[in-house]
């Protein structure tokens, strides 16, 4: 059921079994999974079913490091969270992402990918995807793309599946409305996790409504599922017993902020022959696409590079025939024939529609002609290459509390996004790998854009994948949560979402977020039993 928290009386105390803070992919997955578990579940959502500027403003913050997307536009604060805007791109993390990698400090998860596979399989239908199948060979058979025999030391084809995208708040709203044991409180902002005097349990979750009442929840277990930035913020703000923030004994909360680094136009590939059989040149309407990506073999290399993927976008030939016509005409005007005459004549014949279109518009001055041809139907002669690089764990890259306060009187976030030499080397290696493989396979040549000697290119972007700020580790000196996603030292507090990722690989995080939430639901059922 849904409850408008503004209708509660001031200082109401709600008793529940599990309190989930946030209704993004993680929070809604948890609530769905626990709806038939036999104990009451309370879910807190800051917003309502629609965007509200005043609520959204609670997300505003500042950048103090490398510029990233503004904090109040990179995430959404209403029911469904940022799934209200995500693109739907899904891929599980690779097995090597879970392993210790010699060149990546603090790499390695305290669980194996095989531990997550059963949950990935369950996550697929929740994201309205096909089978849990990411083998390029499988999809080649399904949709006819051909996987190139890349050198496994350099490159592989990474398959991504496309969710519609699933707007969790819309798709699963009725299921939660009908769930008798689940109460979703809208307009409910968790403002403090009040701990016992030894900070070993959360006694009360304090909740405030914008312009409305404050109330509290007493819950056996509390789950932070407010997102990769907000999870850390809530812990840092919950400083009534531990001044540095709850669960922050070792000054790790907020640190190790990671977001994939995205370099648009990192390179351009030019093909020796049009339409090479590359799975990376996806077609609209297909449920999958491929990218070129780093390999397990490269991950074990001690040369110090992380994961990467290269997204290729078709570049089309439109006017080769027109250029050939100009070349022939120019040669004839000088009473000679051009070199490769037959090749030019072939181009002219092949692009006769484009030539007719160009001539008609030139002669008539009109913008369109009866000969207009679709440029996207032309042969693919090259591809733009955007480079996405795994951001590796860096304690200096972090979320902090700023002095600015929001409408609830809470310190806002300052984000200090930092990249380092590993990311720089990974960018270079990514492009070099593609250049070497396309050359080795006779597909074409690559032009690479060098990074500036210092700093980062102005067109560097984040990818809306905030992660790592309550990272997972068996050792409390290197992690905020353990392998069960329980906060070290706080027996009834768990964290869900990408903030627990110790490393991020190159894959989009949502499928892993959902899988981890399903796994956490199993853990909570065990704890409540």
């Amino acid at each position, binding site marked *: 059921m849904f409850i408008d928290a503004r209708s509660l009386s001031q200082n109401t105390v709600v008793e529940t079994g599990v309190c989930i803070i946030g209704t993004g992919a993680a929070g809604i997955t948890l609530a769905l999974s626990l709806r038939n578990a036999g104990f009451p579940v309370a879910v807190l959502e800051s917003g309502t079913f629609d965007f509200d500027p005043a609520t959204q403003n609670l997300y505003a913050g500042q950048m103090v490091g490398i510029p990233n997307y503004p904090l109040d536009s990179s995430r959404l604060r209403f029911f469904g969270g940022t799934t209200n805007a995500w693109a739907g791109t899904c891929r599980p993390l690779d097995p090597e992402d879970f392993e210790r990698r010699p060149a990546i400090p603090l790499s390695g998860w305290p669980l194996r990918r095989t531990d997550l596979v059963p949950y990935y399989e369950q996550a697929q239908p929740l994201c309205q995807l096909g089978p849990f199948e990411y083998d390029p060979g499988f999809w080649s058979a399904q949709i006819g793309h051909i996987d190139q025999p890349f*050198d496994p030391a350099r490159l592989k084809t990474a398959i991504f599946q496309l969710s519609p995208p699933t707007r969790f708040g819309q798709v699963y709203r009725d299921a939660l409305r009908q769930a008798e044991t689940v109460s979703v409180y809208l307009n409910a902002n968790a403002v403090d996790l009040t701990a016992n005097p030894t900070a070993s349990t959360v006694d009360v979750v304090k909740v405030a409504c914008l312009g409305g009442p404050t109330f509290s929840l007493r819950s056996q277990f509390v789950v932070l599922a407010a997102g990769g930035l907000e999870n850390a913020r809530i812990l840092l703000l919950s400083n009534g017993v531990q001044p540095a923030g709850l669960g922050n004994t070792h000054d790790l909360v907020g640190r190790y902020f990671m977001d994939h680094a995205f370099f648009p136009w990192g390179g351009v590939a030019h093909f020796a022959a049009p339409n090479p059989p590359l799975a990376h040149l996806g077609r609209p309407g297909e449920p999958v696409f491929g990218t070129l990506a780093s390999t397990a073999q490269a991950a074990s290399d001690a040369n110090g590079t992380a994961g990467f993927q290269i997204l290729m976008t078709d570049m089309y030939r439109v006017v080769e025939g027109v250029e050939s016509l100009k070349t022939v005409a120019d040669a004839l005007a000088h009473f000679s*024939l051009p070199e490769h005459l037959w090749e030019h004549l072939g181009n002219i014949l092949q692009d006769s529609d484009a030539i007719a279109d160009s001539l008609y518009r030139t002669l008539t001055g009109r913008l369109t002609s009866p000969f207009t041809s679709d440029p996207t139907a032309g042969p693919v002669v090259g591809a733009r290459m955007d480079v996405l690089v795994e951001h590796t764990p860096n304690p200096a890259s972090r979320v902090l509390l700023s002095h600015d306060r929001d409408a609830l009187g809470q310190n806002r976030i300052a984000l200090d996004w930092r990249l380092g030499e590993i990311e720089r080397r990974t960018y270079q290696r990514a492009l070099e790998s593609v*250049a*070497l493989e396309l*050359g080795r396979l006779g597909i074409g040549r*690559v*032009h690479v854009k060098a990074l500036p000697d210092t700093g980062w290119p102005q067109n560097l972007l984040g990818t809306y994948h905030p992660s790592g700020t309550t990272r997972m580790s068996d050792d409390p000196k290197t992690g905020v949560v353990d392998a069960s996603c329980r906060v070290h030292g706080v027996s009834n507090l768990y964290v869900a979402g990408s903030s627990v990722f110790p490393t991020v690989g190159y894959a989009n995080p949502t499928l892993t977020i959902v899988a981890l939430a399903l796994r956490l639901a199993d853990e909570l059922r065990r704890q409540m039993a």
Partner: protein
Amino acid sequence: MRPTRRDIIRLAGTGLTAGAFQSASAAASTQSQTEKLIRLLGAPRSAEASGQVYLIAQGSTGPTLAALWSGVLGALQLDAAALQRGDRNALKRRLRARIRQDFAERNVVNVDGWILSRVETEICAIACLTAESRS
């Protein structure tokens, strides 16, 4: 003169069909060894452009023409006589195989951002150094 996109496309298209059809005037001319080597890449002017960029980047320590020839013939496992008498299509296949081997072995050169194989870069450099004598 920086290599353009078109230059590189033409260099990359070292296929059996590239240059298969020639103008009557070109077919009638006598091909020197240099000309024959350069035409294996299929685009002499593009090769000259790329070679010029490469040589400028090398500066005063750049390779001599003799060193380039030695490198290319060594890479192709040919001597000058074999190049002279060799069938064009067979030579193109040999060059293509060598280019692929260069990429497999990371034997490549960055020419103004373009990642090219060593042997094709050296042929481009030969094209640049001999451009005047061939024009």
